[in-house]
């Protein structure tokens, strides 16, 4: 520990602490622009200049490490006038006229900084050079006129996402934020639309199309919750206003993702085009007609009652893994325990969980670990997963580790979005993944594998990550391989509640067989074509859905339910971490929660669906230890 005095306050800090961080600890606020708490200090804007006793010139607090007995002054006249001058220079560089900027009025860190220094005007006027605006991207606009060259976006793109799309070309006043090598419009670049650059931009240089002019930070309601786009369960902060979504940001505090999101979490969910269902519908004389909940439920009861207790020619039921645990629990209770159907599953059909669930049950051991192992790994083997297609944030964790020396080995059969990023790609070709994995574990005489073997052998902390392309045999081979290299294993699973559905044993392939009725708890999910095709011919079809769906053509009853932002309930992520979703929007009148819909249907049929859904979390040995 070393001693530092900042504005007469003396504190002890550990060696290597920057003056900026030390000041924060001492309760002294130093203004910053290019600095961001989740990015490497850069020292570009100079707004954080402070006076260090004995130093010839003012020093940037964000990059200067504290030395023992250092004495720092942060609000002397010299410092204050330097700050004003720094801001004056920034304002003079480009177009920073506030009246026509969407961030003006509280959201702009540059404007706020000027207010803090009591700047009523600019000492120097701008030089009136127009800079390029790149509006080629579907989700955000890059306006170089508003850019202060702080490079937060460049650092976020590289450090947090490992994508390195954004960069700067030229020097001095000509410095320009660019995508890839410069002549590429952002919309046609290597950008993966994660939007991290939008989240960190301090000015109006990168603005989101969807949220523009919809409300400032102070005008929106903030809800910390989780993304239910996949089983990672990233922490998000939803901004909403007047029951409308304004924007989604990654939650910096979330242990799972630490602020990073993918396009699904940040943009796709904001871009919903489907129409809502707001009233129950019942088929009368061949056409779906609006009905009350009571009418709809009694119509279902009329058709379900005769089929109750019939295991193979009764009611088939299928649910989305985007439903909260509470609803999935009630779903299982109704259709398995009470109605005794032999075909109760999820839209995932266990494809992403079954292999692991069987193995965990067979060995009686949980064998998977957490995603944060990726950040410390020195070699990562990915089997049967394309992390550019889904679970993209896990792919970001890998890509951002690579510049630090982490090696990537891909084992799969088709093309993979990470092929070019990988150090070694092993394509199984006509053989199965397990052949390749087994040969990796006993590598004698397989020269084509020597590259991968060398990387694994040299690794101290290898991680083996697998996706739904891995079957039970492959997984066994992968586990043996991981064991032989003393590595950690991570299973990606599928949807938001994939793991909980697996714990409920809702993971068989959907076959209508002889069932006379079907119940689809779709929530706000999409239906796979093969399942839709089977449901077309069922004599009686009930769909519980938030949005109008193709199934409506065949449905006899439609029950309107909540969409993701309205849902409250629990989700078990791929790490076995139980997280709670909080609603940011209120559902329209006439729309019920997924849980309530199932419970009232159960009650109408004479069944009580209440029970402790938490007991099912560990009712069978999970593939990953559940932390509830």
């Amino acid at each position: 520990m070393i001693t530092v005095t900042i504005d007469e306050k003396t504190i002890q800090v550990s060696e290597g602490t920057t003056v900026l961080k030390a000041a924060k600890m001492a309760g002294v606020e130093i203004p910053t622009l290019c600095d961001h708490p989740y990015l490497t200090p850069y020292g570009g804007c100079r707004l954080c200049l402070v006076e260090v006793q004995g130093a010839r010139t003012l020093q940037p607090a964000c990059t200067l490490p504290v030395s023992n007995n250092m004495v720092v002054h942060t609000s002397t006249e010299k410092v204050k006038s330097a700050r004003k001058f720094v801001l004056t220079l920034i304002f003079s560089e480009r177009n920073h006229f506030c009246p026509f900027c969407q961030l003006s009025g509280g959201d702009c860190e540059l404007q706020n900084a000027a207010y803090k220094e009591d700047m009523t005007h600019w000492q120097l006027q701008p030089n009136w050079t127009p800079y390029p605006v790149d509006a080629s991207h579907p989700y955000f606009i890059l306006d170089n006129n508003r850019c202060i060259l702080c490079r937060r976006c460049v650092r976020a793109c590289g450090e947090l996402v490992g994508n390195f799309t954004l960069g700067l070309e030229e020097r001095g006043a000509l410095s320009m934020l660019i995508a890839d090598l410069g002549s590429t419009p952002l919309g046609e670049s290597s950008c993966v639309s994660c939007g991290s650059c939008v989240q960190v931009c301090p000015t109006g240089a990168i603005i989101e199309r969807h949220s523009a002019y919809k409300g400032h930070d102070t005008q929106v309601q903030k809800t910390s919750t989780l993304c239910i786009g996949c089983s990672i369960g990233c922490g998000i902060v939803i901004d909403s206003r007047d029951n409308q979504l304004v924007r989604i940001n990654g939650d910096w505090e979330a242990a799972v993702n630490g602020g990073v999101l993918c396009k699904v979490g940040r943009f796709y969910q904001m871009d919903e085009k489907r129409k809502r269902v707001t009233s129950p519908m019942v088929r009368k004389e061949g056409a779906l007609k609006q009905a009350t909940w009571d009418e709809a439920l009694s119509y279902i009861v009329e058709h379900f009652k005769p089929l109750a207790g019939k295991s193979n020619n009764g009611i088939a039921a299928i649910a989305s893994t985007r439903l909260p645990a509470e609803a999935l629990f009630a779903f299982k209770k109704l259709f398995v325990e009470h109605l005794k159907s032999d075909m109760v599953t999820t839209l995932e059909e266990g494809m992403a969980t079954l292999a692991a669930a069987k193995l965990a049950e067979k060995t009686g051991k949980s064998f998977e670990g957490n995603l944060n192992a990726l950040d410390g790994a020195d070699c990562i083997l990915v089997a049967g997963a394309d992390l550019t297609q889904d679970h993209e944030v896990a792919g970001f964790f890998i890509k951002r580790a690579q510049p630090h020396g982490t090696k990537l080995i891909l084992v799969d059969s088709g093309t993979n979005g990470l092929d070019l990023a990988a150090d070694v790609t092993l394509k199984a070709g006509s053989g199965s993944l397990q052949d390749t994995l087994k040969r990796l574990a006993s590598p004698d005489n397989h020269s084509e594998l020597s590259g991968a073997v060398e990387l694994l052998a040299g690794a101290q902390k290898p991680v083996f990550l697998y996706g739904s392309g891995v079957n039970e045999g492959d997984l066994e081979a992968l586990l043996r391989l991981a064991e032989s290299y003393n590595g950690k294993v991570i299973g990606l699973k599928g949807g938001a509640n994939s793991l909980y559905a697996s714990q409920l044993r809702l993971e068989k392939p959907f076959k209508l067989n002889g069932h006379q009725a079907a119940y689809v708890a779709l929530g706000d999910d999409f239906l796979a074509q093969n399942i839709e095709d089977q449901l077309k011919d069922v004599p009686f079809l009930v769909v519980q859905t938030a949005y109008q769906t193709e199934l409506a053509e065949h449905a006899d009853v439609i029950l309107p339910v909540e969409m993701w932002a309205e849902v409250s309930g629990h989700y078990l992520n791929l790490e076995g971490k139980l997280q709670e979703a909080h609603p940011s929007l209120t559902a329209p009148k006439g729309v019920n929660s997924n849980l309530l819909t199932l419970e009232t249907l159960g009650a109408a049929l004479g069944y009580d669906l209440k029970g402790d859904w938490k007991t099912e979390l560990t009712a069978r040995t999970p593939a990953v230890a559940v932390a509830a």
Partner: protein
Amino acid sequence: MGKPKIASDWLAGCAGCHMSLLDIDERIIKIAELADLRATPITDLKEPDEDGVAVGILEGGVNNSANEEVAHRMRSRCSLLVALGDCAVFGGVPAMRNMFTLEESLRRAYVETESTDSEGKIPDDPELAVPQKVRALHEVVPVDIFVPGCPPDPDVIYYVLSELAQGRKPEIIGDKLHWH
């Protein structure tokens, strides 16, 4: 000693700052009690008194030779000059045209507008003021008090006027400081 005289005028602005001034509503009576409101764009008297006023207020940036003249006249006849609103303080919305050449903006305004039916014409009457690059007021004449805002809030304008009417210099800081 009589009441301090206040005069105002507008340059390249939208009159919005003067509208915001009128939005101080009945408080204008209080100002009239404290000060002598002289020439303004919304009173009959159009030019500040030749023997001078205590406070001159200008809205808008300077975008042609006529604005320049008005700015110089006001400066020469007032003791304290107030730049009212973003256009006077920074150049504001009219200054967007500085990103283009004068020729380009004149063509866009008089020839290429959607409502120009046949062939447009850039006005060239020698009696017209000569357009210039848009400048903030302080680039043309020294300014004593800057009141930014697009427009400044009526409460801020009232504060500025009442302070000036009572011989004090207003401080535009904290909640009173807005650039939008």
